[in-house]
């Protein structure tokens, strides 16, 4: 393909694609092929439809992959778009259904309502899950084919870059981004425009811009969705940022667990280079910009910017002292700007639509939207993008559909291992950077894990500590040793050997680690403990004083017993792996507590609900 050097040529590509799409009589079948879709079995679905179309000689059917549309609970999702007709969205599709959809609908022209949402033929945009959302960062995810740059251009892709390179000075770009109020979505919420303005004036033979795609919060996948579903948005924004700060080289640091994202990024980079949108003399100007992908290797701390830099340089990913800040002395000692994936996904839109448009969503101090990965005990697991200022209640109940199985909501954790839990009394808080801090949690990168009455909060705190102990880089003592000691105490408490004194020690340790650790990892590691201690003190007391786990999770603190409901069917005693249950046929059985492993199998197999957990 010829390299593009004017806006006119970019417009021509867009127009040609628009015409093609409008005039086309083709049936487009779109299969959600993000990691989540693929895990749920999208590949055989895609293959089935593709092969069937080929076999039937229907060359007017194109079967296209798309990224994650955010509705994980409905995967695999297939959309059938026939010219001049309403799009039909099929959910929970498997190979067998796919074959049927092909025969009856694609070939036969008769959609199958049973396989659509609620059997009602409603599209994704009709359901509550989408109604409260506003998609800016995710606007193209699940909509465009991420492996085709022309689809991105069709959605105004690279017009932002063109505008910047051909009409704006770097200072104007920075001012615009500053004026939009965009704050970093990677966790700290620092103004992106300010960050760029720190790196811009520094003179150096080389500057760098780095996209932080390490997405370390376990249970969060916003950035993955953007990389897999709309990789060009990240590339375009990096080039814009590069122009603004005077960097000619960019790195994307992607966590190793994201092979699909890496593959899509590689394709996207190659396509952008071919069109002269990356590489040398972008759009015919004198600006050069190249991007290289670097893979992480499974270290959470590498999401922290100085550790990330050490990792790209080829060292152990250990964080460094700040100052010097990366904007002055970053990668290989050169001025470096580090931006998160989702932050970048907003940039081209801001350039094209202006700062005022962006400030039209969200709150005064946190304009725009935020993507959350909603997971845990929630009906609609998935990705949600809402304007800042939406309340937690709206996200959890209106969009997420509440806890499954009629269970009672207990808490929601935001900010992952660095954050805290939020309880019912704060559910009406409008979400933004400052409000979440005020209620003892933080925005973090966007993980939002819902917990119900069956979750033990001390067990959850221990889980996060386990994570930080594992992931501490070991450079500073408070984090390396302190988190271990905290973990030991939590282990003691959950195994029924904790004392009230432990609670005081735990709090002291937490405060000390927070104030003396080198980097953000240690400084925030105690947060999950402090916030659970704050909101669920009674649960801690129950563990250390009464030696009970009210949620029935901590094995050492629960007992299984057989109630009067027992009919003596012997099923439990036959299923017990420890032979701890005895009793005669048709008589109430008993569990020998000294041999019981507390595996819970008896409770699962009992048909009469006779087994109780105490």
């Amino acid at each position, binding site marked *: 393909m010829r390299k593009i050097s004017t806006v006119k040529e970019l417009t021509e590509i867009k127009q040609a694609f628009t015409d093609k799409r409008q005039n086309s009589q083709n049936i487009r079948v779109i299969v959600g092929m993000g990691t989540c879709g693929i895990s*749920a079995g999208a590949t055989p679905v895609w293959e089935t439809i593709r092969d069937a179309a080929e076999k039937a000689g229907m060359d007017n059917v194109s079967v296209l992959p798309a990224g994650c549309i955010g509705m*994980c609970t409905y995967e695999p999702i297939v959309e059938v778009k026939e010219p001049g007709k309403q799009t039909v969205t099929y959910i929970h599709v498997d190979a067998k259904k796919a074959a049927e959809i092909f025969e009856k609908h694609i070939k036969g022209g008769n959609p199958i309502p049973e396989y659509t949402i609620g059997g009602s033929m409603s599209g994704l945009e009709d359901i509550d899950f989408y109604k409260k959302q506003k998609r800016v960062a995710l606007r193209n995810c699940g909509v465009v084919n991420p492996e085709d740059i022309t689809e991105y251009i069709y959605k105004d892709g690279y017009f932002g870059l063109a505008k910047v390179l051909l009409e704006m000075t770097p200072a104007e770009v920075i001012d615009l981004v500053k004026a939009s109020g965009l704050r970093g979505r990677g966790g700290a919420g620092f103004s992106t425009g300010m960050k760029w303005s720190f790196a811009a004036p520094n003179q150096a033979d080389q500057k760098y811009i780095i996209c932080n795609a390490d997405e370390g919060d376990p249970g969060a*996948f916003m950035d993955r969705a953007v990389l897999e579903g709309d990789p060009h948005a990240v590339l375009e924004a990096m080039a814009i940022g590069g122009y603004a700060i005077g960097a000619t080289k960019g790195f994307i640091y992607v966590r190793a667990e994201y092979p699909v994202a890496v593959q899509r990024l590689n394709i996207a980079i190659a396509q952008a280079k071919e069109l002269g949108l990356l590489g040398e003399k972008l759009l015919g100007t004198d600006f050069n910009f190249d991007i290289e992908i670097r893979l992480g290797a499974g270290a959470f701390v590498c999401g922290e910017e100085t550790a990330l830099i050490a990792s790209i340089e080829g060292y*152990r*990913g250990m964080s460094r002292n700040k100052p010097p800040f990366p904007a002055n002395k970053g990668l290989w000692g050169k001025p470096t700007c580090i931006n998160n994936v989702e932050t970048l996904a907003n940039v081209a839109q801001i350039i094209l639509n202006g700062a005022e448009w962006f400030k039209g969503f969200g709150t005064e101090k946190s304009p725009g939207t935020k993507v959350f990965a909603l997971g845990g005990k929630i009906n609609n697991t998935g990705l949600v993008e809402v304007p800042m200022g939406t309340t937690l209640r709206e996200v959890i109940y209106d969009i997420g559909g509440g806890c499954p199985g009629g269970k009672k909501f207990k808490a929601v954790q935001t900010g992952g291992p660095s954050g805290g839990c939020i309880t019912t009394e704060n559910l009406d808080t409008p979400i933004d950077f400052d409000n979440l801090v005020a209620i003892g949690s933080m925005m973090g990168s966007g993980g939002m894990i819902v917990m119900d009455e069956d979750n033990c909060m001390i067990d959850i705190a221990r889980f996060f500590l386990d994570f930080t102990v594992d992931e501490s880089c070991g450079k500073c003592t408070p984090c390396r040793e302190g988190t271990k000691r905290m973990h030991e105490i939590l282990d003691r408490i959950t195994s029924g050997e904790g004392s009230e004194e432990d609670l005081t020690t735990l709090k002291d340790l937490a405060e000390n680690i927070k104030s003396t650790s080198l980097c953000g990892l240690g400084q925030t590691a105690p947060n999950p403990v402090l916030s659970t201690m704050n909101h669920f003190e009674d649960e801690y007391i129950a563990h250390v004083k009464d030696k009970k786990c009210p949620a029935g999770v901590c094995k050492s603190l629960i007992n299984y017993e057989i109630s009067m409901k027992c009919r003596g069917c012997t099923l439990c005693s036959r299923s017990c792996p420890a032979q701890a249950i005895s009793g005669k046929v048709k008589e109430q059985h008993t569990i020998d507590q000294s041999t019981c492993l507390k595996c819970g199998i008896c409770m*699962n197999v009992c048909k009469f609900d006779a087994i109780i957990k105490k």
Partner: protein
Amino acid sequence: MSNQCNCGGIIKENDPRFAELKGFIDSLVGTKGKTMPVLQEAQKIFGFLPIEVQKFIANELEIPLSEVYGVSTFYSQFNLEPKGIHKISVCLGTACYVKGSQAVLDKLADELEVEVGETTADGVFTLEATRCLGCCGLAPVMMIDDEVYGKLEDISVIPEIIEKYYNQRLPK
């Protein structure tokens, strides 16, 4: 250098895979910060990173072996020991943990009679815990090789799944 090692997988000095690795290293001329990409490629080629391979890399990159070893032991994705034929990874990401993936892991450890991070005596399975596989919608999740098994709330199905892989024994 002796061509014997006691790391479990004997890799000889004249193993042709070294040439392949050297080819990759040579292709990186002009690239800065080569250590990680080279270790990643080496692991792809050899399956793990025995000390011979790390020595080779140190030589080629002209950096101390201690530096290579420092990096290979820092990151959890680098394996210094050979792995089983099938890799079982149980997700201990928050979404999965909240939905009970610890029970999945315990069940597997029990069935396979190994600790997390270990390989079974017959070399068939390696059991690992990972953080978020990116399919929280299916929580709790485990992955065997490239196959994802989701919604494992009922752990009694696990032995059957393992059995299937044991019978195949060879990677797909």
